[in-house]
């Protein structure tokens, strides 16, 4: 058993050492998107340190500094590099704090999707039979609904069921659950297939023979061997989750307006597109595009790099 594990780890390590790294180095697009993604993630994580203002602190807002254009346009103020919104909020700071929430919701919901999808996929593929049929039919049904619709349904139901105050404080969790729950099917499908292949291999049979329980086999032997494709799906799913969150927030059913994400910022700015204050919505939009595009490109690269047939 120890040997098998060592072998697995060795294989992954050598992959990272050689092939992945080589293909990464050879693709300028990938390097660029990795840099952009890293920059955005760092900016979001360090928002309280790097942002010039705190957009959540009402007392720091100066309404006389409202509606300022970006610094390079006429009338811009260097204190507000990307301009200000109608309340005098610094657009750059709002974007940094907003990206934080977008990324937080994105990562958390992807993790939730993985948790649900991978567990169900493992069980489904390993146990087979009726349980497999039931889980896969449920997945089929869910696949026939667009993810955004399911997320809207969950969010709407939570809004109806929870009292207002409670919903306000739980909004972020509800959103993570709504997006996470709407995305588990792909993981379950992929992991089920891979599990079915792996569970017929000799190392699994060997483990079964020496009397290891199914839970342990799934966790310690099969799981590490099916995680490759999951990683690829997760990267692409992260981009989708961020977009879903932005869509929900744009529609006004996402995060509460007191902690605006990128989608909320675009919604706020949308009201000013006709009046010429384009910077309030365009900059959060550009950041959203950059974030999603770079994550998507990374996901594409990862898929190609890990796919033996394309190598």
């Amino acid at each position, binding site marked *: 058993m120890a040997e098998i594990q060592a072998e697995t780890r060795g294989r992954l390590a050598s992959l990272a050492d050689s092939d992945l790294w080589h293909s990464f180095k050879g693709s300028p697009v990938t390097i660029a998107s990795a840099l952009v993604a890293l920059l955005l993630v760092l900016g979001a994580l360090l928002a309280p340190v790097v942002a010039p203002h705190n957009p959540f602190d*009402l007392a720091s807002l100066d309404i006389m500094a*409202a509606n300022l254009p970006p610094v390079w346009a006429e009338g811009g103020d260097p204190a507000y590099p990307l301009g200000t919104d*109608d309340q005098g909020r610094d657009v750059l700071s709002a974007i940094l704090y907003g990206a934080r929430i977008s990324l937080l919701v994105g990562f958390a919901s992807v993790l939730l999707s993985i948790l649900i999808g991978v567990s169900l996929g493992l069980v489904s593929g390993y146990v087979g039979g009726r349980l497999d049929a039931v889980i896969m039919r449920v997945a089929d049904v869910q696949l026939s609904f667009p993810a955004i619709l399911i997320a809207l349904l969950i969010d709407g139901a939570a809004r109806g069921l929870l009292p207002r105050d409670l919903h306000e404080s739980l909004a972020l969790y509800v959103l993570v659950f709504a997006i996470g729950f709407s995305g588990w099917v792909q993981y379950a499908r992929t992991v089920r297939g891979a599990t079915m292949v792996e569970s017929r291999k000799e190392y699994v049979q060997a483990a079964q023979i020496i009397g290891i329980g199914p839970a342990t086999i799934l966790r310690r032997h099969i799981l590490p061997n099916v995680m490759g494709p999951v990683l690829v799906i997760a990267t692409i799913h992260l981009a989708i989750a961020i977009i879903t969150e932005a869509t929900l927030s744009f529609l006004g059913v996402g995060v509460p307006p007191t902690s605006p994400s990128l989608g909320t910022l675009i919604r706020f700015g949308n*009201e000013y597109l*006709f*009046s010429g204050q384009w910077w309030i919505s365009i900059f959060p939009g550009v950041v959203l595009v950059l974030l999603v595009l770079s994550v998507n490109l990374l996901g594409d690269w990862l898929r190609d790099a890990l796919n033996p047939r394309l190598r």
Partner: protein
Amino acid sequence: MTITATLRRSAAAIALLGALCAGAAEAKTLRWSYQGDATTMDPHGLNETFTLGVQSNIYEPLVGYDEKLQLTPLLAEKWENPEPNKWVFHLRRGVKFHNGSDFTADDVIFSWKRSLTEGSDMKGYGAKASEIRKVDDFTIEVLTKSPNPILPREWVFLYIMDEDWSKQNNTTEATNVKNANQGNYANLNANGTGPFMVAERQPDVRTVLKRNPSYWDKGIRTNVDEVVFTPITQPATRVAALLSGEMDVIQPVPVQDWDRLDQAPGVSPLTGAEARAIFIGMDQARDELLYSNVKGKNPFKDIRVREAVVRAVNLDAINKQIMRGAAVPLGSLIPPELNGYDKSFGEPYKPDPDKAKKLLAEAGYPNGFEVSLDCPNDRYVNDEKVCQAVAGMLARVGIKVNLLAQTKGKYFGKVLAQAGYDTSMYLLGWTAASIDAHNSMLNLASCRNKDTQAGLFNLGGYCNPKVDALTEKVGSETDQGKRNAMIKEAWEIVKADYGYLPLHAQPMSWGVRDGVKVVQRADDVLDLRSVVLP
């Protein structure tokens, strides 16, 4: 946004197709949008100018307003004031309700009684009369408790319903705005005497009005056969609907978009000064605020705290940045358009945040306190943004404001008397329906009194007996000079008490497709009688 626009466009296409098939291609349809819906069809459900304005095309009062807010005979042909406490109205003969039944004096008496029922928001108007006597089918005598020289003007929004219809449909009591859209037949259905009839009513989605073919006044100008009213909450979507030709009239246009409409071909903004004061009230009645972290006492009972609130807010900044300079900052609840306005109380307070902080510390709140602010988000021009700006300014002196901005149906259903004044601080707008300062004194600045219905919209419970005494005298004074002197005295007292935080008189702001002729009344009401389509 695009999806709804596409849907709406296809819906319009289908409607058009249907109209063509029915051979009614000649019918003139006015497409009209507001930022919210008319909250109810019940004429006694909500005393809000927009809702009453929509209803004014369906229901009619005895005496109404013309385009210049001058009194014009509607269901009463003549009226006179033979004794100080008595008014006589001679009703119009031959008027029929939409369902064909005849309009008589009984309907007037029934409607007056209905306006005094539990759920009614029009109690303040109904309470003006102590009794209505039927002389004959087309003559009534209205008795008032005290002399009331302006009764017809005060009743321009008291609409007349059909007694038989109301009894048949079990709607003899007014819809309570607290449970709007529930149960009451008159909430969703209407049977008035006006030039338009409700053909379809989907709250918050779409309301279709059809021309009343047997309307008594054949002289009205409009050539509109059908009105499709669609509330559009999102300002940008509303403006886009006008620009794309989907709408003929939209209300309001965000002030920041005026330039855009000026430049766009085929549409223009229609603007003017509105006789509406926007202000913030504070709960000064309860011993402990409902929504605050201060327990055991009410900070707003302390005049120093109220002054601090007033001094913290910079009206010029709000006017410049949020209203784009289109509003008129106020020092009281009386806009310059009202009779009785005077500079002595009309000048805005001088903002002084440092003094505000000092006052808060003196009052025992050196670190400020927390309070919730109720605000509508689809009622007044940029209402939520104004609330946000006020919240920011109060935060700077230490008062942390939790903003609860919601659609006007929910907002009114929370803060008004019918819901027990469930608020600690609120933003409200008020147009004196009679265009006279006395209306604001009675509704906003008088102590709340269940019997006389005074102070019905004094949601914060500001109370000064001196103001009450003056209000009563003004109500029956006929000498204009003396009357205005008392109005001035009363508002100076309210100002010295820091009873309210007045903000501004807002501008009227409509967007109209070229060729559509509308009259913009100074109370922001769109009277369909005057709309002419090309």
